[in-house]
């Protein structure tokens, strides 16, 4: 999985490319996010537009990160999840835990 992190207006925009599933993909995202949270970042937009599939390990990581950022006064929001990613998140009842956006600008500005 490719992970690219950019900072926009005190918000970390995390672009993912590939399947978010158990193994190197989930491990890499966990490490990237733990480093960012350790550095004091608490506002995240996760761009899922190029993530065709999220497995239960990926879902578990996303909800843990959501809880972790909220505990620190921040948030983790999802950008452009695919139709199948939305279906998967809904199936396990966690879709409504997240704020979901269609546009990066709107997602970033929602933190203002």
């Amino acid at each position, binding site marked *: 999985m490719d992970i690219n992190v950019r900072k926009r207006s005190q918000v970390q925009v995390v672009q993912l490319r590939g*399947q978010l*599933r*158990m*193994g*190197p*993909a989930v491990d890499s995202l966990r490490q990237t996010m733990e480093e960012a949270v350790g550095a004091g970042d608490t506002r995240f937009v996760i761009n899922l537009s190029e993530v*065709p*599939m999220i*497995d*239960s*390990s990926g*879902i*578990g*990581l996303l*909800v*843990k990160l*959501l*809880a972790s950022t909220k505990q620190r006064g921040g948030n983790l929001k999802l950008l452009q999840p695919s139709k*199948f990613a939305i279906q*998967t998140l809904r*199936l*396990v*009842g*966690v879709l409504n*835990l997240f704020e979901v956006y269609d546009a990066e600008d709107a997602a970033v500005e929602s933190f203002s």
Partner: protein
Amino acid sequence: MSSKADGGSKDLRELLQLTIPAKSEAVASVTDAVGETLTGLEVPEQKRLEICLAVQEALVNGVVHGCGNDPSKSVTCRLESDGDGRIIIVVTDPGPGFNLASVSDPKRGENLYADHGRGVYLIHQLMDKVQFERGGAEIRMWKY
């Protein structure tokens, strides 16, 4: 013998059989191989994604729970099809199985923020029929 209408084993054609060491980084290779096989069979994308995610979850279950992440053990995945385009997947691990009754509902409030416990639930939601054999050490999944 059960009938085709029951999703049984009549006239099945083996499409793929792969065995991997029980380590998490090996799982994706099987899921991807299943996806490529289904693409070759012109299985529609939505159906293919649902099967691949169910396979992924079954393999992860086998690696983590069936083998305890011990790479000296192995997990096997077999992909079959019948003449009517139904897909059957069998994932087998050497473990003792598990108690299905102990699988909790991931949509219950206290479980929503858990980082695990959604795999078996997802498999049931994504596939048309699911059977656990050998106490859960073998999972059979059908997609019609």
